[in-house]
């Protein structure tokens, strides 16, 4: 077993154009925690965080736009899921 992964460091090498003030994913208030935990595990960008005190933290800025959370929880705990506006979001230089 290796150390706990730090996804933020990996996302740090990526190129993002963040659309400040226009999050393209919005969570419902007080999301069901069973559903939320699915996203904690599945999101490849590790955006759905669970703090030690049990609180949740989510920021769509490092989103890879894969759609995993939409497939898993699009009808349960996501208030909104859309692609970022044109030119914004992840920009793969290699892909």
């Amino acid at each position, binding site marked *: *077993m*290796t*150390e*706990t*992964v730090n*996804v933020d460091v*990996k*996302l740090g*090498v*990526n190129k993002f*154009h963040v659309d400040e003030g226009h999050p393209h994913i919005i969570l419902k208030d007080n999301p069901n925690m*069973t559903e939320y*935990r*699915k996203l*904690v*595990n*599945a*999101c*490849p*960008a*590790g955006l759905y965080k669970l703090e030690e005190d049990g609180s949740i933290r989510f920021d769509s800025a490092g989103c*890879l*736009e*894969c*759609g*995993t959370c*939409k*497939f*898993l929880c*699009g*009808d349960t705990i996501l208030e909104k899921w*859309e*692609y*970022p*506006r*044109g*030119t914004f*979001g*992840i*920009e*793969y*230089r*290699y*892909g």
Partner: protein
Amino acid sequence: MEEEAFDAIIVGAGLAGCVAAYVLAKEGADVLVIERGNYAGSKNMTGGRLYAHSLEKIIPGFAKEAPVERKVTKEKVTFLTDDTGVTLDYHNGRSQTSTQESYTVLRGDFDQWLMAKAEEVGAQFITGIRVDELITKDGKVVGVNADGDELIAKAVILAEGVNPVLGEKLGMVKPKVNADAMAVGAKELIELPKEVIQDRFNLSDDEGAAWLFAGSPSNGLMGGGFIYTNQTTVSLGIVCGLHDIGSSDKTVPQMLEDFKNHSIIKPLLEGGKLLEYSGHVVPEAGLNMVPKLVDDGVLITGDAAGFCLNIGYTVRGMDLAIASGEAAAKAVLTARANKDFSAQGLSSYQTLLEDSFVMKDLKLYKNLPAFMETPRIFNEYPKMVADIMQSMFTVDGSESQPLRKTLMKHCKEVGYMNLIKDGIKGVTAI
């Protein structure tokens, strides 16, 4: 209004979209591709390996000019547990025809090349614009609304990728595709000197390796790991089914990290530098998730149509995307000749797909996704194979057992009935 209409507007400049544009423009059709990213490929990623056959038929000899990375000549499949690996290694030194070859690719460069090819023959591209919705009139798709502009077309080809937002809005794609049918992939692109890659993977110049791993990479869930060698980078990743992800004791990024640090993998990447981290959903349900493919004024192609095959020892999506883009373009050309862009007028799309490898292969492997959900494939069998190997290759002075007995002991741990059952299921699914 009708005079101004494009013959086709294509949403998305991935492989399906760019190929459709190329085929249409080459025949003189008036075609516009709208891509939300800043350039073709900027939102796209792959494992990845491109089987050449479908693009080779459209642009013969493409690999000589396209930015492909390496020609795959080495195939490896490894059963992995946390601390062992049993590998099947196939080196193909035979000469192959251009349609039999396959290449490792990176989509940033590759898609831009393909877009340029389509532009050369007259296709128009707009990048950095998101198509917000489709415009329908009397139930027929007649154009798109993109960033406030209305653009009119006789047909719209949806090549919007695995997450078909527009297809769902139309009701052609089931709004909630069962998450069981999907897997998520995460990949690191790691830079290493060219000679180091060739030494570590035993490759000569321009030769590449495709290496798949079953077992511990996906933490016992459906899925696996992969390595593809590029010119000066290695693509390393995992794919994991979403079916049971809620009960996993590891996150997807952690799975990738642990895979990367496995004692088989780690030495191969020593000294490498992370260039990019990417993620993607893989539509793995095969035929079971293919949506309504054609309707009045609209067709769905590529990942958006669920055109993907996971056969365990290889995963295919790009060659299907290319073939479906071509089929959609041909159907639009037929509709254009007959001046009928209704579902009926575009129906040759369906027929072309049925007659091609796309639907034939999807049908052939239609029972495979269900079989792949057998957890034993990702848990017990890798361990069983490793245990057999360990018994065979460990000599410690204790009394040796006949090989037959050793084999039977390890098979018994999984259960003979399970082996027979999975064997039959597996063989009939493939």
